[in-house]
């Protein structure tokens, strides 16, 4: 399961569209403003590849819309994802950790073997790492279903690889002559 060349092409096309949109507004701005515009258009391009079918891409579009609503609207106009900009997000999942921890403490006192305790510790570590994953995947804290989280993670990684590969090729090519 690797990013395909058609994904690369699609990403490049959409990213180009975004860059053309921001072009007039970044001609006389600072390096950091330009960088932000470049990155935001890359993110929207990446998210729009999924055509609204994944949770992470919808979350990323909404998050980007809070930073540059105009750009998002322009890049997605005419596509159904435009509706996503205003769609209400479901409530974030709140895991009542204190309650879970307390009840687990009680349970643990009754545990007999060290083996069981080790397994419990491992499970707890997995839980913590899973929460860490939720923090890095867009919209992760809205996914209470761990299976969904893993599927979304895989798709998100593949999309990120596409984004990085294309951007890297462009930047490397553009920098090739300037280091002389």
């Amino acid at each position, binding site marked *: 399961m690797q990013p395909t060349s058609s994904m690369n092409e699609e990403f490049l096309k959409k990213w180009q569209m975004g860059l053309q949109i921001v072009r007039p507004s970044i001609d006389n701005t600072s390096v950091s403003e330009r960088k932000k515009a470049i990155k935001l258009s890359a993110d929207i391009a990446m998210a729009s590849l999924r055509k609204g079918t994944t949770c992470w891409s919808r979350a990323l579009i909404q998050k980007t819309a809070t930073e540059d609503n105009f750009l998002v609207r322009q890049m997605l106009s005419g596509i159904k994802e435009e509706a996503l900009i205003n769609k209400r997000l479901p409530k974030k999942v709140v895991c009542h950790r204190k309650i879970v921890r307390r009840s687990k403490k009680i349970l643990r006192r009754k545990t007999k073997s060290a083996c069981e305790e080790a397994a419990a510790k491992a499970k707890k570590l*997995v839980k913590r790492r899973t929460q860490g994953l939720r923090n890095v995947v867009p919209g992760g804290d809205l996914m209470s279903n761990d299976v969904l989280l893993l599927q979304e993670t895989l798709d998100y990684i593949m999309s990120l690889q596409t984004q990085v590969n294309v951007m890297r090729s*462009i930047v490397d090519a553009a920098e090739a002559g300037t280091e002389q």
Partner: protein
Amino acid sequence: MSNRRSSRQSSSTAPRISDDQMIDLVTKLRQILPEIGQRRRSDKVSASKVLQETCNYIRNLNREVDNLSERLSQLLESVDEDSPEAAVIRSLFM
């Protein structure tokens, strides 16, 4: 969607990742993260390592995107108008 109920008393709201699902994820991640391909165990300890590696990988990718955006932004300033590199950049923005 199959929600496997945990047999232990647990008040967590989310279904846990089952072993099968974790094995499946490890297999897929192995293709993406070559470093962890050597691990053969699929018990819980490896599961947490897989998740940790995944998080790190995602963070690295995001950092790289950030870095590439910065470099491109710098290039726009410094590129010589007549160079072939300028043509690459121009074609990007038109």
